[in-house]
């Protein structure tokens, strides 16, 4: 049986505004991909349907791909289109 892990997903800028909060915590199976966790966040987050299909993501402060696998304690973040400078 797969262990369930809790992933806290930070939201920034327009995504935080969309959700009305700066993080969403979701339960996913151990080893779930970033893509699966993002789908869970989309379900759970207010106005989640307005997120792009494949938002830019970071795991543990590094840019990450949809296929990256998650473990307990990983910090997920959804990044709106970057606009630094």
């Amino acid at each position, binding site marked *: 049986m797969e262990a369930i892990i809790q992933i806290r997903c930070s939201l920034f800028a327009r995504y935080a505004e969309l959700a009305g909060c700066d993080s969403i915590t979701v339960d996913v199976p151990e080893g779930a991909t970033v893509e699966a966790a993002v789908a869970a966040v989309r379900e759970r987050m207010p106005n989640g349907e307005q997120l792009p299909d494949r938002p830019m993501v970071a795991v543990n402060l590094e840019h990450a791909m949809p296929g990256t696998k998650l473990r307990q304690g990983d910090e997920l973040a959804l990044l709106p289109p970057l*606009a630094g400078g």
Partner: protein
Amino acid sequence: MTFLGRDPIDIADLAARVSDPGHGGTAIFVGTVRRSPDDGPVVAIDYSGYEEMAESELVQILGQTQERWPGARVALQHRLGRIVVGEASVAVAVSTPHRAQAFEACRYVVEELKKRVPIWKKELMEDGQTRWSDDGDREEAAK
């Protein structure tokens, strides 16, 4: 190291931080909040970031810059919070023995920052409206 701050950027201080008696070229890039016909009547921009990640990405970018241009000295400051038109949001200073590398390395830092560093801007208009900026000029500006 802290690359992010809320106070106005001191460009002279940034230049002083890369000064080196063996370096004959210092390139300084300063990005300022602007008003342009395409953007509408922007009066200020609120900058926010995923600060921990932004600092970490900037450490990596500076490390990669020093790998590509060994010996280069690099200093960078990005401001967050509300910045009015005409004020600097970012400044990068690079010094190297000769000018060509200083220009190249300085540009590299700015382009990498735009590609990788999680910072966002919300434009404030004259009429009080706000708008998240997608930086539509990103590709244009890179040309």
